C-alpha cells in the first residue's frame, strides 16, 4: 500500500514537472515571433532560403511558409489563418474586395519557357512567335513542318511528325502566366480558352507539376510544353527563342526577363490598389522576354484585421518583408529567380510604409 502511494506521489510530481518544463521554456522564448505564411509553390525555394538567412539577421523571428499553392494561400489569407499569403496571380477583383483591399507586394519574378523535344534540334535554336505557339496549343498547327513554323525557322530541317502538346494538369500559376500571354497574342485563344490557373485545353495531354511536364516532354519525341525558367535551367531542358512585342527573337534568361519588368514598371499601380489587371506578359522593349510574371505577397493594409497579429508581430512582418525585397534579393539569381528591379523595390517600400496597425504607421528599426 505504501509503495502504491509513493508511486502515486511520484506520478503527480512528474506530471507537475512535465507541465512546468514547457512553461519555463516558453518564458525564455517570450521574445520569439513566428510569422506564418502560405501560398504559391513557385517562390518556395526562395522563401525557404529567406527563412534560413533572415534567421541570421534577426534570430528572434521564425518564418513558417507552407507551399500549398496560390489558391490555398489566398483562401487561408482570407480566412485569416496565416499572417501573409503568397500567390502567383494577383487577387481577382472579387477576392480583392472580399479581403477589404489588401496590398500586393511583388517579391520575386519568374518566367515561363516553351520547352521542346524534337530530334536533331538543339537548345534555343527553335524560334517561335506568340501566334504560332497559340495555334499549336489550340491544335490548329499539328505538324512540326507546318509552313508557319518553317517560315520563321528557315535554317532548321523540321520533321514531318505530329506535334505532341503537353500542358500542366494541375491548377498552377505557371499556366496562368502562359495562358495570359497566349490571350494577349491570339484573339482566338482569348475567346475560346482564356486566362486562368486551369483552362479547358483544346488538345494535348496534361501532366502534374513542372516535373510531370518535364518527364512527359523528355520521354516523348516531337513534343512541346511549358515550364518555369528556374525549373528548365536545373533540369537542363531545351527551350525555344520567342519573338517579343518589338519583333525581336529573345532567349529566355534572367536578363531578358529583367528587361521586360523594367519596361513595365512605369505603369504599375499603387501597392494598395487592385492588381488584378497587372501583367508583365508581352512587354514592350527590344530585349524583353514576353512570358514572365510577378509572384506576390499579400497583406492586410491594416494588419490588425487579422486578430492573431499583435504590434510586435506586425513590426516583424514589415521588417522581414523589407529585408526580403532588398537584401534578400541577392539570393534570387543563384536559384534561377529574377531579382526585383529598383523601381519595383521603391514601389514596395512605399507600400510597406503605408501599412498600419490599429491606425498607426508601423515603425521598423
Amino acid at each position, binding site marked *: 500500500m505504501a509503495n502504491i502511494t509513493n508511486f502515486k506521489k511520484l506520478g503527480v510530481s512528474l506530471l507537475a514537472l512535465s507541465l512546468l518544463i514547457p512553461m519555463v521554456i516558453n518564458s525564455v522564448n517570450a521574445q520569439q515571433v513566428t510569422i506564418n505564411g502560405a501560398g504559391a509553390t513557385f517562390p518556395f525555394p526562395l522563401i525557404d532560403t529567406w527563412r534560413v538567412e533572415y534567421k541570421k539577421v534577426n534570430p528572434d523571428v521564425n518564418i513558417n511558409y507552407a507551399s500549398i499553392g*496560390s*489558391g490555398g494561400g489566398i483562401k487561408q489569407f482570407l480566412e485569416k489563418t496565416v499572417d501573409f499569403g503568397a500567390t502567383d496571380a494577383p487577387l481577382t477583383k472579387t477576392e480583392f474586395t472580399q479581403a477589404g483591399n489588401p496590398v500586393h507586394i511583388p517579391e520575386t519574378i519568374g518566367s515561363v519557357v516553351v520547352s521542346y523535344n524534337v530530334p536533331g534540334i538543339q537548345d534555343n535554336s527553335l524560334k517561335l512567335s506568340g501566334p504560332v505557339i497559340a495555334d499549336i496549343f489550340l491544335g490548329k498547327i499539328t505538324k512540326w513542318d507546318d509552313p508557319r513554323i518553317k517560315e520563321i525557322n528557315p535554317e532548321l530541317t523540321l520533321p514531318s511528325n505530329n506535334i505532341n502538346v503537353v500542358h500542366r*494538369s494541375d*491548377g498552377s500559376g505557371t499556366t496562368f502566366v502562359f495562358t495570359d500571354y497566349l490571350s494577349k497574342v491570339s484573339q482566338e485563344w482569348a475567346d475560346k480558352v482564356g486566362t486562368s490557373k486551369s483552362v479547358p*485545353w*483544346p488538345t494535348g*495531354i496534361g*501532366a502534374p507539376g513542372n516535373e510531370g511536364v518535364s518527364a512527359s516532354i523528355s520521354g516523348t519525341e516531337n513534343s512541346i510544353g511549358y515550364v518555369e525558367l528556374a525549373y528548365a535551367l536545373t533540369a537542363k531542358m531545351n527551350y525555344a527563342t520567342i519573338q517579343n512585342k518589338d519583333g525581336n527573337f529573345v532567349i529566355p534568361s534572367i536578363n531578358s526577363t529583367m528587361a521586360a519588368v523594367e519596361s513595365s514598371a512605369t505603369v504599375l499601380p499603387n501597392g494598395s490598389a487592385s492588381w488584378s489587371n497587372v501583367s508583365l506578359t508581352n512587354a514592350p522593349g527590344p530585349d524583353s522576354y514576353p512570358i514572365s510574371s510577378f509572384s506576390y505577397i499579400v497583406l492586410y493594409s491594416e494588419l490588425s484585421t487579422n486578430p492573431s497579429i499583435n504590434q510586435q508581430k506586425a513590426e516583424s512582418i514589415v521588417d522581414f518583408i523589407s529585408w526580403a525585397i532588398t537584401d534578400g534579393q541577392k539570393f534570387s539569381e543563384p536559384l534561377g529567380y529574377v531579382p526585383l528591379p529598383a523601381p519595383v523595390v521603391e514601389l514596395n517600400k512605399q507600400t510597406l510604409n503605408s501599412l498600419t496597425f490599429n491606425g498607426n504607421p508601423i515603425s521598423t528599426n
Partner: protein
Amino acid sequence: MNSKDNKAEIVHLIGSKSNKFITGDRLFKALVIGASIYALFMVVLVFYALSEGSLPIFFKEGINFIIGTDWNSVEGRESFGALPYIVGTLISSSIAMVIAVPISIGIAIFVNEMVPGKIGTVLSFVVELLAAVPSIIYGLWALFVFRFWIVDYIEMPLHNTFGDNLYVFARTPFGLDVFTAGIVLAIMIIPIISAVSREVIKAVPHSQKEAAYALGATRWEMVKTAILPYGKSGLLGASFLGLGRAIGETILVTMIIGNAVGLSAIPTTLFSPGQTLSSIIANEFNEASGSFQLSALIGLGLVLFIMTLFINVISIFIVSKVTKSNSNVRE
C-alpha cells in the same frame, strides 16, 4: 425473520455478482454498438459534407453537371460537367478488370493446386509483397520506365496491325493514355484479387475436388467443375474488392492517364488521354479558385462516392445471389 434476512442477503450477494457481470457485458455491448454507429456515422457525415459542398454547383448546372462535358473554370465562363470523368473512370477500371481478374484467379489456382506447398507459399508471399508497394511507386515506375515498354511492345504493334481498320487503335500512341493507365491499374490490383482468391480456393473442400478426380476429371476439368462453381461468390467478391481499388486510385492514374479536360477527356480510342474522377480532383483541388470550381470538384467527389457505394451494393447483391444458387452444392 431470520430466514428473511438470509434470503435478502443471498439476493443481495447474487445481485452484486450479476451486477458485475452485467457491467462487463454492458460495456462490451456499448463498445460494439459504438463502433458500428461510428462506421455508419462516418458514412453519413461524408455524404452530408459532400452534398453540402456541392450544392452550389447542382443549383447552377442542374442535371448538366452529370451529363455535361464542359469543364471551364475561367472567371466569368464557369461551366462544369462530370461526364468525361465518369466515362474515364469506368473505362480505365474496366480495362484493369479485364486484365487483372483472369490473371489473379490463374495465380490463385496455380499456387493452390499446381505447385507443391513450399514453392506455393513463397510464390504467394511474393505476390502479396506486390500489394504492399505504394501506388506512387507504381506511378513513377510507369511514367519513367514501363510506359516505354507498353508503347514499344504492345501499343505500337497493335496500332500498326489494326490501326487502319479498328478505330480504337487508330491514334498514334505515346504511352500516356487510358490503355496504359488500365494496364498499370491491373498490375496494382492483381495482388489484392489473387490474395483473396487464394483463400477462397483454399476453402473449397477436399471432398469436392476428390469427387471430381474420382469421376475421372483431368486437372482442368476439376478446376472447372469443382473449384470455380464452389468458389464463385468468393471470387466475385475478390474481383469487386479490386474494382473498388481501381476506381478510387488517384496518384498513379494522375501520372499516366494524360489528364485531358472537358470534351477531349472522353477517350475516343484506347490510346487517347483521359481523366478520372479522382485524378481531376487531385489535379485541381489545390488551386481551385472561385466558389464554383471548388463546389464542382466536391460534386465530383459525391459522384465518386455514390458510384463506389453503388458498385458495393451490386457486388453484395450478386454475391448473395450466387451463394443462394450455390447452396445445393454444399458438402
